[in-house]
């Protein structure tokens, strides 16, 4: 027999002004199973909680209903109070008579009537509440960072610093990511490589960090604290353990016409290559698409010149399986392809470049050794036009609806650097708005305009036309002057929108994390949980969550690391006890539930059963891993036999609520 206590909160006058709390307490006192029903000024106060604790003991309560504010506010408070009095915390139900009653209704009579009905529903539900015990699941004290850009590097370093082992999986032959390609950083104009490469080296040297370069995630199983990840180590045809990074092979390789992706294809590399001088790990890789030995079986020069015998043409993709407690996603971004913007003549003229290409053109390690020359004729450009928002804040299908955030600042940086180095070069920037929120950002932009004389023109570039004299005719509108402009430019630089890396989407599916419509990972809460995904144990670092500049990326990387460290510090984690479970005797083994589970929490097992007709039979039945299940309930509806039910929100509980409301 249930012994239920009902506690009706006045919430000062928040509830009591529109709901007759005494009448509610009185009415609910007559409900079957209710042994005590009282009202109180503030149930969430210390003394309010004592009221509950005392009642639990005095009346040997088996269930508690608190009619108060939203359970999203104080459900935990009252659960803790119950637990403190020795009652299972999951025997508490809240009737939301503030947000969903007193605050929205004005008439006392009808509001009171509704409050009573909501209270009855909670009483009806609590009759069927079962004591639940949160399970525990051990935590593997090792983290995985997916992506080895500045975000991944920072996260890995922080986690390692805290004393935990951490693996970086990077799909390129080296870590470093986009930041390694950048020349200078805003708003300080310090050298990107100078601040990045020490961190890369630190990663390589830290004995807590393992770098899986030229590797990808092939599969993710498991759940918070206990992920099993299959890493695909792509064949690089060079034995990582032997290669010393001397570079002799790259010098001798006869195949020298491979577009160099590190320099955005602006120059060439060899078929066996080390992406750049400071690469970590500094190990060569052979590009099988170009290697003459791998393609035709004729060459083998690199193998001959390698003194340590690191070249291995027979290498194949390898799969390794590792266990992790936490996973940090740091897959970063890419500039969008801008081929579709025909008006900018990107495909027609080599002198129309993207901003990232400009970074390489200006970089000392770039194709021109740091001297800015036009790609077409290697001449010094005298007029450069920058076009902002190419594909950003864009409604059409070629672009992205969001602001890429970093373009305004890096364009100011580029403009400033050019003006600084080549004062005879005129720089025009066409913009929609200039967005400079950030420490020292607006000052930086103003310096570009005021001190360096960069021509900022509010307006859109309509068309770029290559002319016969090698110049580019830039046709644009100046919105402030309300006139059409033609500029004879030597170069046009497009601030291409940035988008999440293409590898993110399949990864999100493997991780069962959410993505928004732009394929950025969705954080658990946009304000309060910005570095966690909604999937427990998966954290977000850097631009995979949204466009970010370097300082923001690093801040988020450290934040994600802190969250991961918080998880790894625990020996075990408490699981949500409101999870699904299957009544094996009713389970058909049809796999419907498994197919709708977003977490892979359901597996099927063959189990021997003693059947009602006294025979034994091996049956295929669903088995829910309570540590993985997050309690959404999708499976409960997919299951036709009703074998699958959800603790805390069981079929019978919800139907009891329906009945009570419709009474």
């Amino acid at each position, binding site marked *: 027999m249930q012994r239920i206590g009902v506690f009706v909160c006045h919430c000062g006058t928040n509830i009591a002004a529109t709901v007759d709390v005494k009448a509610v307490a009185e009415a609910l006192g007559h409900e079957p199973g209710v042994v005590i029903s009282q009202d109180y000024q503030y149930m969430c106060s210390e003394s309010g909680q004592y009221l509950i604790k005392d009642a639990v003991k005095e009346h040997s309560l088996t269930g508690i209903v608190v009619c108060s504010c939203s359970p999203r506010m104080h459900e935990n408070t009252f659960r803790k109070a119950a637990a403190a009095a020795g009652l299972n915390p999951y025997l508490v139900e809240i009737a939301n008579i503030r947000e969903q009653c007193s605050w929205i209704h004005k008439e006392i009579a009808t509001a009171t009537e509704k409050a009573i009905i909501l209270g009855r529903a909670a009483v009806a539900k609590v009759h069927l509440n079962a004591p639940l015990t949160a399970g525990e699941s051990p935590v593997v004290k090792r983290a995985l960072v997916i992506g080895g850009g500045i975000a991944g590097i920072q996260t890995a370093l922080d986690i390692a610093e805290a004393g935990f082992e951490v693996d970086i999986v990077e799909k390129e032959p080296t870590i470093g990511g986009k930041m390694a390609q950048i020349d200078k950083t805003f708003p300080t104009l310090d050298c990107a490589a100078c601040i990045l490469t020490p961190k890369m080296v630190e990663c390589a040297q830290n004995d807590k960090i393992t770098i899986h370069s030229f590797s990808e995630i092939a599969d993710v199983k498991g759940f918070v604290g206990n992920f099993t990840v299959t890493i695909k180590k792509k064949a690089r045809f060079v034995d990582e353990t032997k290669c010393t990074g001397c570079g002799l092979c790259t010098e001798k390789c006869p195949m020298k016409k491979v577009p160099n992706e590190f320099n955005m294809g602006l120059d060439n590399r060899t078929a066996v290559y080390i992406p750049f001088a400071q690469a970590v790990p500094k190990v060569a890789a052979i590009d099988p698409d170009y290697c003459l030995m791998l393609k035709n079986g004729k060459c083998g020069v690199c193998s001959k010149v390698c003194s340590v015998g690191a070249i291995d043409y027979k290498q194949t993709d390898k799969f390794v399986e590792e266990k992790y407690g936490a996973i940090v996603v740091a897959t970063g971004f890419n500039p969008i392809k801008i081929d579709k913007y025909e008006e900018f003549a990107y495909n027609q003229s080599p002198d129309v470049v993207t901003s990232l290409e400009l970074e390489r053109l200006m970089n000392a390690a770039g194709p021109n050794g740091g001297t800015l020359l036009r790609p077409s004729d290697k001449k010094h450009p005298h007029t450069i036009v920058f076009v902002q928002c190419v594909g950003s804040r864009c409604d059409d299908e070629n672009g992205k609806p969001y602001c890429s955030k970093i373009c305004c600042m890096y364009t100011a940086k580029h403009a400033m650097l050019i003006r600084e180095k080549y004062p005879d070069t005129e720089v025009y920037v066409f913009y929609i708005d200039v967005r400079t929120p950030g420490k020292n950002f607006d000052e930086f932009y103003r310096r570009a305009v005021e001190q360096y004389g960069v021509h900022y023109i509010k307006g859109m570039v309509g068309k770029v036309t290559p002319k016969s004299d090698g110049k580019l005719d830039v046709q644009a509108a100046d919105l402030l002057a309300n006139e059409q402009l033609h500029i004879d430019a030597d170069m046009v630089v497009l601030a291409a929108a940035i988008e999440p890396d293409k590898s993110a989407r399949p990864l999100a599916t493997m991780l069962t994390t959410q993505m928004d419509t732009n394929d950025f990972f969705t954080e658990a809460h946009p304000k309060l949980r910005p570095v966690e995904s909604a999937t427990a144990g998966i954290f977000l670092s850097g631009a995979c969550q949204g466009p970010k500049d370097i300082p923001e990326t690093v801040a988020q990387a450290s934040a994600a690391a802190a969250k991961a460290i918080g998880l790894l510090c625990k020996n075990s984690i408490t699981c949500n006890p409101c999870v699904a479970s299957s009544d094996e005797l*009713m389970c*058909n*083994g049809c*796999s*419907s539930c498994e*197919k709708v589970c977003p977490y892979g929490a359901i597996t099927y097992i063959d189990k021997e059963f003693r059947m009602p007709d006294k025979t034994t039979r091996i049956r295929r039945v669903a088995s829910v891993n309570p540590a993985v299940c997050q309690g959404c309930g999708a499976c409960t509806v*997919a299951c036709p036999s*009703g074998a699958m039910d959800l603790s805390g929100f069981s079929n019978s509980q919800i139907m009891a609520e329906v009945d009570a409301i419709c009474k």
Partner: protein
Amino acid sequence: MQEAMIKRAKELLADGTVDRVMGWKKGEFSYDHTPAVFTSAQELDENFVCDDFTSANLSKYLVKETVRDGKILAFLKPCDTYSFNQLVKEYRIDREKVYVIGIPGGPKLDIEKIRAKGITGILNIRNENYTLKIETIYGVSEMPFYEAIGVKCESCKSKKHVVYDELIGEDGEVLDSNRFDMVEKLENMTSQERYDFWRSELSKCIRCNACRTVCPACTCEKCVFENPDSGIENKAAADSFEENMFHIIRAFHVAGRCTDCGECSRVCPENIPLHLLNRKFIKDINSLYGTYQAGENTTDKAPLNEYKMDDCEASIVHERGAE
């Protein structure tokens, strides 16, 4: 046909490929054949039958049969193969334990259609060039073959066997059937007309559960309607609501899994056109989520177990044409 089937069954029994044969057994009259398991050549010779009245879908029996040891031969009509595949997909049938011989499909006849013509005292039925010569105690009656075919065969969706180990006779094609015509007709009625239609049909329901127990998609270990803990258990419709609920929930539970085999309507003692409920779901699924045929293969995800991000909203129901 029947001879060829018996011959092949005997061979497969003799060479040890199978130890049982699932087929139909001759009845008391010329039309009341019963699904049965045969274990010997003698039984097959004496009782095995396959004719215009062997319309029962044998697939569901294989759920029970494949729990047993040994391998069973099953004769499956094209429509039955869809049910079979669906059950394999849902792990209800162990494919390894069945040797499937595909046999040509119907149209099969329904004795009730003959009785509905007022023909009674039936002693023998012969099909002569698609005219049925029905010998009765009261003399010989005649009726066109096609007027006596069962509801499930009236709009055959496919003559193709989607799974088999061997075929007897030719395989056919997926047909361009008119099976959604009646659903469409109902859709074009007013809400009140539809309500009246279904009330008059469903109020006939005696809750014998024949539709459920015969349905190859209804193989739950325990049906929610029999489970006191489900909250909706009920044995008889004590109110018109319960008549509606049983059929809505049943149709929903088999939505995306129903192969449209038509057994529900075949067995309904009250001739309620239950298949229309299933077809409504199939029609909606086809038009809203892309053509899907349950049981066509064992790999496609069921439409209710998957989604597309740009699926239509539920409000499409409100936006549809006829009131």
